[in-house]
Each structure stands twice: as structure tokens, then as C-alpha cells.
């Protein structure tokens, strides 16, 4: 069986700045992969390359054995890739429910329909409510997004990605900026995601992240420095070097 995500020799530069340098990565179906690394290591850039937000300079990306290196990011969404953003990227003028409905609409043929009322689409509203319930926000379904807290928005990011029923889910610092209580909730939520979803997660909070991860990839200056199981990566001297500074 082919890997959920297989990356070969991926590179990306911004001007003279080489942000991704020959990254290889193979993530098995159902795996929980943690990506760590200091600020500016190129973690988010790697996600942007995987989702197609950025074009690769060279290298190859395979999604369940299918070459998607040149596929535009909307196609990757339709193939079953969903992500959350490190910098919250939601629709501030819409309600929570409509935010999640928009996420569902993106994969539905109904999105081209100019004649029916969006609000009446129970085929979207019902699963959207379920997704909100999964992140514990269904009681705020009709609140405009602009009136929600930061922690709630982080969870809506996750709800929107989950609503699409992805095969591979990329979470970019899902715990950033959350209170201890909110962290616990989101932690539980991520643990509860069934194993038919493969998860790649960038996270700085090691207590939570290490608990979730099956394997860990350590990025530094755009390169994979260490990769292995939890124990392997934690014990590796290079990990200490990267984090404590040479």
C-alpha cells in the first residue's frame, strides 16, 4: 500500500533564501506525524508546498501514490487534503455555521448554483452543525465570527477542515495561543479523530504534541535533521543541538 503522503527531494527558495532543502518525507496512512523545528525552520512553508499554496522549485509530491506536484491546491482539496492555518483565515462577516457550510460547499457541486438559498441547504447545514459539535461550538452556530474569541476561532479552523472529511489533515500549530483548558479540549479533539484520517501536525507544545505523535520529523533551516519515533527523536543529540543552539 502506498504512503498517504510521499515527498521526494522537495526544494523551495524565496529569492536567495532557501527555505526548503531537499526534504524527503513518507507518511503512512493513519499515521500521526509531528513536524517540529525552531521558528523560521520552514515548517509552514513545507505545508504550503504540500497543499499547493506554493509551487515547488523541484521535487515530487505523491498523495496516496498519485503525483500531485503540479496539481493546483483546489484539486488537492477535492482529492482529500485539508488544512488549518497558523494565522487564522476565516470569514469574519459570516456566522460560525456559515463558515463551516462554506467549507462543505467547496467540495459540493452546489457551489455553482446561483438560484437557491444557501441558508436553506440542509445537506450542508446538518454536517456543518455536526462539525461544530465536534469542536464543542454548536451552541454558537449563529454567532457572527467577528464576535468569537481567539480560542474559538482556532477550533473553527479545525471544524472547517474536519467538515471536509479529509484523508489527510494538516494542522499548523492548532494549540497556538490557547488557554490551558482550551488546549486540553483541542488535544482531546485531535485524539478523537479516527485513524482513517492521516494527520500531519506542526506544534510547539511538546507535552501535547508528543502524546499524539507516532513519528516526529525535526526540521532545521529547511532540512530534515532527524526523523524517527518519539523516543528516537527526543534522545537524539542533534535534537538537543537544534533546540539548545550550537
Amino acid at each position, binding site marked *: 500500500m502506498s504512503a498517504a503522503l510521499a515527498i521526494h527531494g522537495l526544494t523551495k527558495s524565496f529569492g536567495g533564501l532557501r527555505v526548503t532543502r531537499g526534504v524527503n518525507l513518507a507518511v503512512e496512512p493513519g499515521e500521526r506525524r509531528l513536524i517540529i523545528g525552531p521558528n523560521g525552520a520552514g515548517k509552514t512553508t513545507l505545508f504550503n508546498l504540500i*497543499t499547493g*499554496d506554493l509551487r515547488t522549485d523541484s521535487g515530487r509530491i505523491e498523495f496516496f501514490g498519485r503525483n500531485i506536484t503540479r496539481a*493546483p*491546491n*483546489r484539486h488537492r*482539496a*477535492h482529492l482529500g487534503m*485539508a*488544512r488549518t*492555518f497558523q494565522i487564522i*483565515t*476565516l*470569514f*469574519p*462577516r459570516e456566522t460560525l455555521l*456559515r463558515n463551516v457550510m*462554506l*467549507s462543505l*460547499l*467547496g*467540495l*459540493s457541486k*452546489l*457551489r*455553482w*448554483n*446561483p*438560484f*437557491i*438559498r*444557501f*441558508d436553506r*441547504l440542509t445537506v450542508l447545514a446538518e454536517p456543518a452543525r455536526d462539525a461544530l459539535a465536534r469542536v464543542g461550538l454548536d451552541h454558537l452556530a*449563529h454567532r*457572527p465570527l*467577528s*464576535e468569537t474569541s481567539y480560542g474559538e476561532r482556532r477550533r473553527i479552523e479545525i471544524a*472547517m477542515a474536519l467538515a*471536509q472529511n479529509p484523508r489527510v489533515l494538516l494542522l499548523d500549530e492548532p494549540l497556538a495561543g490557547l488557554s490551558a483548558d482550551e488546549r486540553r479540549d483541542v488535544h482531546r479533539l485531535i485524539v478523537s479523530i479516527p485513524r482513517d484520517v492521516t494527520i500531519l501536525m506542526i506544534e510547539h507544545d511538546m507535552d501535547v504534541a508528543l502524546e499524539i505523535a507516532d513519528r516526529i520529523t525535526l526540521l532545521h533551516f529547511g532540512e530534515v535533521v532527524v526523523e524517527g519515533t518519539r523516543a528516537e527523536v527526543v534522545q537524539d543529540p542533534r535534537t538537543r543541538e537544534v533546540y539548545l543552539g550550537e
Partner: protein
Amino acid sequence: MSLRHALSTPDAEKASLSTRLLALGIVLALLVTVPIWVPNSYYVNICSQILIWAVFALGLNILVGYAGLVSLGQSGLFGIACYTAAYLVSIGTPHFEAGLAAIGLAIVTSAVFAVLSLRTTGISFLMITLALGEILWGIAYRWVSVTGGDNGISVNTRPTPFGISLASPSAFYYSTLIIFLVVVAAMYVFVESPFGISLRGTRDQARRMTTLGYNVWLIRFLAFMFSGLIAGVAGLQFFYYEKFVSPYVLSLSTSATVLLMVISGGVATLLGPIVGAALVIVMQYVVSAYIQQWNLVLGAIFVAIILFMPEGLVPGSLRLWRALRRRRGSAPAVVTVPVEPES
């Protein structure tokens, strides 16, 4: 939309629905009886003009308001419909075919405009659309054998749909009213449809939309063509209203006028472009009869709108009205959730 959030009790919702239906009924009755209560045909003609420009502005609002793409080339789409119809009618083509060709060419032109301008957004989009509009204006000026150059093209007949002559001001008014109502209804449905919501999504979070699986470019392209269709309809009506076409219809001034209508009335609202069109046309034709410097007055009004109601007349008035009501404390039955939907 904001109203719906503000009124959260079912009773209040019912009340607001019936008041709104009542208001709608009154407005419709007033519109239908214009030729009866409006004193003379000069003013009936002004009402026709308002409706034509309102249609034009509603079409532009698809781009400016709902797609977040500020176009200064809308006159190109409007004008090409005017010229196509004028030229074809002047060489003896039947009105029906000429009208179809005019609207068809406006749509084709909007597709070309869209392909060239949708590489960008923001100020570059504005500059490209402006340049495209200017090119068409230049062609109309120079291609004298077809367009008549500065002299333009005049015709002496209006169409007779279903055997009804549109020669009189009131007959023509009714034709513009029907088209206006159809366009308003279409916009009303469109804005809250999945496609309309998607279009607004591309305005607010284009990157997120792409990540969610939407084809942002195609959504904008289709919206541009829809806008072009409506501009074409408005252009065709404008030509038949004037029975004359000159390069003015393709000028930057026309693009700017319709854009001002949208902005002063309120972008991304259904009523805004209509109110904006009424404001500008009334200033131009009614106030100008009393005040020579009506241009200055209009300018002052625009400045006042931008200073005091930057969101436009319609959303601005709603905001003021709500604030007033809250201060008087005269809304105990309505549970008002603090809503700032446009932030």
C-alpha cells in the same frame, strides 16, 4: 443580513417581515403609478433614467461589492451594447436581433475584459479595467465609418415588443420598470445563493477559498460576465432611451459615475446602488434646474457621505436609525444582540 441578526425573537421577526412586505408593497405601488402621479413627461423620463442607471449600478455592484473588484471600465460593457444596437438598427437590422447582438457582444467583451484584468486584484485591476475602457472609447472616436465618431449615431425608432409601442415616455418607463424589477429580483436571489456566497468568500478570503476547493478565478470570471450581461442590458435601454449614441457612453466619466452611484449608496447592498443612482440622476436633472453649480453640490454631497457615512447612504442610514432607536430605548420587545456585521 444585519437586521436578521438584530431581531432574534420570532415575534419581532414576524413583525419586521410584515413591515418589510408593507414597505415593499408601497414602493411597488408608487413605482407602478409613476406616470399617473408624476406631473409631466420630463419627470417620467427622469424616472426611466434612474431605473436604467440603477440596473447598471446593480450590475457593477456584483464586481465592486460582492467580488471586491473595483472596476473603472464598466462603461466599456455598457457602451459596446449601446453602439452595437445603434449601428445595427441604423443599417436596418430588426430591433430584436440588434438587442440580442448588443447584449451578446457586451458579454463577450466582459469575458475579454475579465481574462485580461483578472490576473490581478486591487489597484492593478482598477488600472487595467480603466485602460480597457479607454481603448474602446478611443476606437469609438476614431472608427468614424462605423461609429460616426464624435457625431455618434442616431436612430428614430424604438422597438415594439409584443406590438406595444415604446415611443411615449410612460410606455418606455414601464419597459424600464419591468427590466429593473427583474434585475432586482435576480440580484436578491443571486446574493444569497451558494454561488453568491462563494463570490463573497473570494472577496474576503481568496486564499482560504482556494484551499477549500473553490476555483477562485472561475468564480470571478463568471461574476464578471454576469456583471457584463447587466451592463449590456442597461446600455441597450440607455440607447433606446436616448435614441442616440456618442462616445460619451464609453467614457471614463460614465464608468466613474456608475461607480460613484454604487459607492455612495452602499456597496454590497441591494438598495445601495439604486439609492445612489437616484441621487446622482436627481442632482443632474432636477437640482441642476435650480442650482447652476449642481456639480459642486453633488461633489459636496459625496464628500459628506465619505466623511459621515463611509459605508454608503443605505448602510449608514440604517446604522444611524438603529443608534437613535437604542438611545430612545423604544425597542424593549426586540432583543438586540450587539452586532457589528461589517467589521
